[in-house]
């Protein structure tokens, strides 16, 4: 253990920025914003302040790294709710990424979650084709009716409870979208960042995203050669595998033709916004990355800017429904987008928007967190569903694929799929305009 502790300390000194650690003045204002702190009876060791203190203590050699310290880092969702709560502007997201990178470098590979992570990151998310293959299998599995059979024989009972709920939450296979005739004119020209998960498992949402923008008169390009954003690599300390994705995207979108680069996944959007930060020391790509990050916008904000609210107001009510909205942590905490999705929902005829209590707290999806930390993710989801039930919506609207899957898992978990549905905001807005 002594050797590991030394290796980890050295790795922390190499990867974790001391100046960022010093930004934390330990006031504790972040505590109650942290889902793990709240769900573990106010456990300081699982709070943002605690984790930063642990990083510093490991780095300074004040303590020796051990499994208990690793556990505190592992349990962090990376939801970054602590950042808006922080009066000192601590860059917690960077710190936890650097910590995970330091651990990834220093620790020998082991454990189930490592296998999961390796499969997911080294292969699936780097090569979009690989992901398409997997998704192809998933769709085959769903279309073929095999899904019904496996559910019936209880194959999924072999897995932990959260995986079962996740399995039932897989999205339905895509349907084709009709050609769009613009209802407004706009001078906006944008490039669409498709996102690997959105472009495969949630393909229709992507099609509808483009359709909605075109309906508002926005000119949409979908540049070739774009790659997965690299967020999941970054969040798990494996930027070395994600680095090529960043370069590829920066190149693919580098054109003066675009006013904005739009995405429909909160998790991707936050990471794309931080390309500038990740490439700030790269003389070749620094400037391109800054341009790239500055042009990022989420679909809700762009739709509001393009005046889609006018179209929504005129639309015939397609249904009477109570809807609520679960924030995407990264869309809210990193990109600061709070009102635009709500503004869209509030302006849909026939739709009654009700604010979800604690909509700003993480649902427990957090990338692949629900796969590697099933117990905590389930506890967080249970609390989330209590809040959802207090509103009794017919639709839970989300703005990120991970949240969408997790909310669907929550609906399955609570056995309320007969009266509740989780949908992407693009889906909901599109349907409102296409009754």
């Amino acid at each position, binding site marked *: 253990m002594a050797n590991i502790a030394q290796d980890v300390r050295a790795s922390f000194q190499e990867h974790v920025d001391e*100046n960022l650690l*010093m*930004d934390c*003045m*330990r*006031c*504790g*204002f972040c*505590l*109650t914003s942290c889902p793990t702190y709240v769900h573990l*009876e*106010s*456990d*300081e*060791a699982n*709070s943002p302040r*605690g984790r930063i*203190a*642990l990083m510093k*203590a490991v780095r300074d050699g*004040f*303590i*020796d790294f*051990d499994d*208990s*310290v690793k*556990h*505190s880092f592992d349990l962090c969702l990376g939801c970054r709710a602590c950042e808006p709560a922080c*009066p*000192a*502007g601590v860059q917690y997201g960077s710190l936890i990424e650097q910590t995970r990178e330091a651990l990834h470098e220093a620790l020998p590979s082991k454990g189930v979650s490592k296998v999961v992570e390796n499969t997911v990151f080294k292969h699936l998310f780097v090569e979009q084709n690989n992901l398409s293959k997997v998704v192809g299998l998933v769709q085959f599995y769903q279309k073929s009716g095999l899904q019904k059979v496996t559910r019936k024989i209880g194959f999924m009972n072999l897995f932990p409870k959260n995986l079962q709920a996740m399995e039932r939450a897989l999205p339905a296979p895509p349907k084709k979208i009709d050609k769009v005739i613009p209802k407004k004119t706009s001078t906006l020209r944008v490039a669409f960042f498709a996102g690997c998960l959105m472009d495969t498992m949630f393909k229709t949402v992507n099609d509808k995203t483009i359709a909605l923008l075109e309906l508002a008169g926005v000119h949409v390009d979908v540049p070739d050669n774009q790659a997965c954003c690299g967020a999941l690599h970054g969040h798990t300390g494996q930027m070395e595998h994600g680095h090529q994705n960043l370069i590829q995207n920066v190149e693919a979108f580098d054109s003066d033709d675009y006013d904005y680069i739009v995405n429909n996944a909160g998790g991707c959007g936050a990471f794309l916004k931080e390309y500038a930060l990740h490439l700030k020391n790269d003389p070749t790509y620094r400037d391109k990355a800054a341009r790239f990050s500055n042009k990022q916008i989420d679909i809700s904000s762009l739709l509001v800017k393009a005046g889609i609210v006018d179209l929504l107001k005129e639309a015939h009510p397609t249904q009477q429904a109570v809807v609520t909205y679960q924030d995407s942590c990264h869309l809210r905490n990193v990109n600061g987008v709070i009102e635009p999705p709500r503004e869209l929902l509030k302006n849909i005829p026939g739709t009654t928007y009700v604010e979800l209590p604690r909509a700003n707290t993480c649902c427990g999806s957090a990338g692949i967190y629900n796969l590697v930390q099933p117990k905590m993710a389930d506890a967080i989801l249970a609390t989330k569903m209590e809040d959802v039930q207090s509103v009794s919506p017919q639709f839970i609207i989300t703005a990120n694929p991970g949240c969408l899957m997790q909310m669907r898992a929550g609906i399955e978990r609570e056995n309320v799929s007969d009266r509740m549905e989780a949908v992407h905001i693009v889906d909901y807005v599109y349907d409102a305009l296409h009754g």
Partner: protein
Amino acid sequence: MKQSIIDQFAHIVGEKYVKQSTSELLAYSYDATANFQRMPELVVSPADTAQISAIVKLCIQEKIAIIPRGSGSNLAAGTVPYNGGVVLLFNRMNRILDFDQDNLTITVQPGMITANICDYVEQHGLFYPPDPSSMKISTIGGNVSENSGGLRGLKYGVTKDYVRGLEAVLPNGEVITTGGKLAKDVAGYDLTSLLVGAEGTLGIITSITLKLIPLPRFKKTSIAYFSSLEHAAETVQEIIANKIIPVTLEFLDKKTIVAVEQFMHIGLSTDVEAMLLFEQDGDEVTVDKDIMTMTTIAKEKGATYTKIAEDEAQALQLKTARRVALSALSKLRPTLILEDATVPRSQLAEMVRRINIVADKYNVNIATFGHAGDGNLHPTCLTDVRDEQEMAQVEKALAEIFDGALQLGGTITGEHGVGEMKAPYLEWKLGEAGIAAMRAIKDALDPHHIMNPGKIFAKDTKKRVVVQFG
């Protein structure tokens, strides 16, 4: 710590509620005070008063120090372990025990978050006024033990003014109750007052009965800028002389304003010397009248700019500078030391002047903001704990600020408490006889010195050099 003793703690509170891993001990080795950190030996989370009593008895027997800790947001190293010991948490004791709308009291466990108490009573049209800046995360037990102040202190007083009664475990393990839901109670020594602000050195508070008042219906905000410190200070005095007690009367000095503007770019004019923020609450007519009068006084006293908020959104905007002051300052240097030297209101301008003299003398960066209405200033030292030479200068500067405040009839701490940090300076305020009296109380109640040792009483008092401020 011996396993047999740890087992006894586990027997009292349950295995799950004894923490001893590296990460858990590290997480309770600090609080919000810069440059103080020491590991505890164990962390325990009792469920009730009986368990706390059993813990105390075990600690007497084994001579183990107890450090009671809420959220660890205090600024005087009041909850940093001094020499090992057991950190005692209240995370399982965070409920409302009784809400009495007939007697206007609420009885809560010490682990409850202060802001949650405020929110709860406000839903019922009642008001718990003390509002330390950390209220969203601080526990009421911590507030009572530190006798915390806040922005509304001028009009509504501080924590002690709202504590009606307590239940506490004494350092001998016995449980006492003091006071009650009573507006009047003179039965014997006022032990409630003794325990409030005792920083966990005289016992462990286990339940708190708070006085509530009706929630004011209306609130209004305004600001004023001044090109001279004296004009701002005269405005404060004139407002009070006009028999107006505003709910808040906050002050920002030039350095703070400049830092805020650099941080936020909200268009503050940086060529001013001071800014005052006024707020009044109550019925609409009085509030309007008071805000008008205060703004007029500011103009008469030479304010270069004034503004009254027209609505809640504008009020929020006006309050931005004060709200982000600490954040903005924290950006300037790696380490921020927030002090709370306090002087009689009439000495406000002189105190700010003295702080600036000291800062120049030792070449340290000190910005000042704070509660002008009650003379409670926050000289904020911006430095770097890694620079030993600079830290030595900082220490000298802070000592002279304490001295300067005391010369003006002030105190070394207005609302943060003594803790370990200010302990070496306490005698400057109290004198030898004062310290001896406090020590006599401490020795009588806690003869084994197991309750939060190293706090309030210092091993050595700093030598006081009386400064000539000319």
